[in-house]
């Protein structure tokens, strides 16, 4: 018990939580935008891989760090567009299309990586994002230490939470996204395009997911590995439900998962002799499921989620 308390009081633990949470924040915000407009995007896992690979490779080829981020964003948007075309105007099964995107995007990423670098045994490294020193904030006692260790992408993720919240709750665009996910006919009857709103939501949401992937190769690590996304996309799908489709709660959910994960790494080193390491590895997922079971019981689903809408049919 004392051990856990000691861990919780260190700034490195909180810094690690925030770092681990960053890709999840991007992913869960992306999934949230898609689902608020009425489309489930199970392509998220593959789009994470695409973002991780493309962002890293663009930087390695000399596009610079922010150039890499832009490439990752656009590649995510591209795969989002495929999903949008299949599920919105064509109205195909969102599950099948999403899983297809995940398989396709993952394989294409690995294929491109192998084709570009056929012979390397250890992947080439890039110079990743460095921790950002923000004058006044970094001087704050404990929080400063936590925030001082974060890179620009983590800050971007936190800004995105605010931005998505603002758009959803304070703009006409957000109103239209919420309405189209509840009753598409309400949007159609007001002369707005259901297809356009849904497709843009999926494209932008997918682009955000890709940034989550790019964080892995360009900030958390400095190279691309096979299997490095490791189910983070699926975790985001669960976190959206935990968050009841609200950006603020999405941030809390991501941080909670990050904290569980940071905690298990530290407990492994402290108590590894007593308990097998796999138990700790499993812990964040088990705790997520437990949290989800509690939160999902009262979840208020977007009513039109998973329901395709066809023009002229009512």
């Amino acid at each position, binding site marked *: 018990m004392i051990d856990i308390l000691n861990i919780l009081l260190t700034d490195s633990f909180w810094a690690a939580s925030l770092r681990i949470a960053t890709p999840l924040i991007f992913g869960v915000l992306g999934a949230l935008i898609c689902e608020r407009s009425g489309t489930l995007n199970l392509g998220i896992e593959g789009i994470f891989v695409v973002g991780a690979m493309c962002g890293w490779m663009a930087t390695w080829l000399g596009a610079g760090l922010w150039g890499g981020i832009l490439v990752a964003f656009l590649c995510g948007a591209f795969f989002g567009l495929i999903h949008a075309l299949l599920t919105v105007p064509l109205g195909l099964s969102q599950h099948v299309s999403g899983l297809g995107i995940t398989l396709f995007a993952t394989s294409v990423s690995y294929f491109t990586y192998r084709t570009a670098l056929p012979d390397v045994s250890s992947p080439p490294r890039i110079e990743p994002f460095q921790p950002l020193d923000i004058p006044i904030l970094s001087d704050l006692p404990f929080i400063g230490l936590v925030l001082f260790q974060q890179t620009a992408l983590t800050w971007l993720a936190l800004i995105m939470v605010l931005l998505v919240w603002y758009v959803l709750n304070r703009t006409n665009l957000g*109103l239209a996204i919420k*309405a189209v996910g509840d*009753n598409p*006919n309400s949007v159609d009857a007001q002369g707005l395009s259901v297809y356009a709103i849904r497709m843009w939501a999926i494209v932008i949401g997918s682009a955000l997911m890709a940034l989550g992937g790019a964080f892995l190769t360009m900030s958390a690590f400095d190279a691309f590995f096979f299997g490095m996304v490791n189910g983070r996309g699926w975790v985001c799908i669960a976190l959206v439900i935990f968050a009841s489709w609200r950006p603020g709660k999405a941030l809390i959910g991501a941080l909670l998962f990050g904290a569980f994960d940071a905690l298990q790494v530290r407990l492994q080193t402290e108590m590894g002799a007593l308990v097998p390491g796999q138990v700790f590895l499993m812990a964040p997922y088990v705790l997520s499921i437990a949290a989800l079971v509690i939160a999902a019981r009262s979840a208020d689903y977007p009513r039109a989620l998973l329901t395709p809408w066809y023009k002229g049919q009512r």
Partner: protein
Amino acid sequence: MEASTVLKLNGLAKRFGSILANDDVTIHLQNGEVLALLGENGAGKTTLMNMLFGHYLPDSGNIEIKSINGDLVPLELGNPSAALAAGIGMVHQHFTLAENITAFENITLGAESLFSLRRNQRKAEKKINNIMSNSGLEAPLDIPVGRLSVGERQRVEILKALYRDAHILVLDEPTAVLTPQEADALFSNLRRMTSHGLSVIFITHKMREVLAFSDRLVVLRHGKNVGSMETSNASEKKIARLMVGSETQKVSPKRITPGGPILSLNDISVAGRSKRDSLQNISLTLKSHEILGIAGISGNGQNVLADLISGLVLPDKGSILLKGVAIQNINPLNMIKLGFGRIPEDRHRQGIVGGLSVSENMVIERLDDPLIQNFGFLRSSVINDNAQTLSEKYDVRGPGIDQASRLLSGGNIQKLILARVFEQQPEIILANQPTRGLDMGAASDVQRHLIEARDRGGGVILISEDLDEILGLADRIVVMRDGNLHDVNSSSREAIGLMMAGESV
């Protein structure tokens, strides 16, 4: 106000596959007029209005609408935004409201650019408040629409149209979900608005409303405009003849004296997940030779009551007595065996198994009957002969008895259910909204069978939202509200309407 034409539909036609849904329909609408559009189901009313609103593109014909400077200009066809901009507002039967945002947000959605911030809130609020006080339509603006009542939601729908400066309002079956008092209030508000220059088209098949509230009426049959007249010259008989093409006889049963009680519900409570699926200490007695009408606005517990009598829901408290003996095993199969016949509300989902053939659906409630099966093997020749006979007897029309039953029209599905239920000569019949959505011919068939069952000695529980139907058929009426039953002493529409709305008489 000077009467001038605000809208002309000229020779509109629309074909869906082999069906001509609208055939050369021409209709004029005058300024400040309330025009009723009547017709049976499938007569093409909704198709016509969908063309007006740009949801469908007509195959031929055009639409002219009055512009700001008073001239009639052609309307761009097949474009809802153009219709909106020209001042046509449509209130659909199924509301087009997002329930997770407020009424205010629903009304203003799409009125401004998506990329502007919500700056003009104050201006928009002022405009809506103005419209509300001018029209008398009031609704709470700042709570999510999901928490509003049906009547309030309808007012929000109308406000939405008026906010977009509609000067022509189209209402598709506006009173289907309202109590008689709410309906009256709606029409008096519409009147108030027409005096401000609004013109109204309302689609309905309720004769009473047409005669009481419209200035002029147009009747559609098989997609054609078969007659239009001033309401002052119209009578119920005249309209009915136009609608069906021949005179139909209104079913008006002879009154007979009821016999002894056959079914009693004793102090039954069911605790459902929400108030609309709960029953609170209800008691009810059904006699033989009796049609018991249960009036009420839908969502007041009628469906739990129906499920209870069908054996789908178990009472938490209380008992069901059949001729004085408590029923022990309450389950659907046992209820059928005890002589219950059920005509469910949702005939597509609960009444038939859509993927099975017509003949299979005709015997689906008695599959263990040795006439139907031998050691679990179905006797298809018997099943087919049975279906052949019953299809003729009950006039079930469709692509064939060996075809999937979901291919039948709503009226024919209901006739299939009637055939299945009434051939077993049930002692107790539960009919939940049996004529909803049926045309006059099919509806009067259903009603005739209910009366026959009563005359034969059965008891009928008739649950209906259509007060006219209940007043016409029932020997005794109770009102259902908030999961309770209330006896009715008066048979006046007003008294029953007030009870449905929850006011003490």
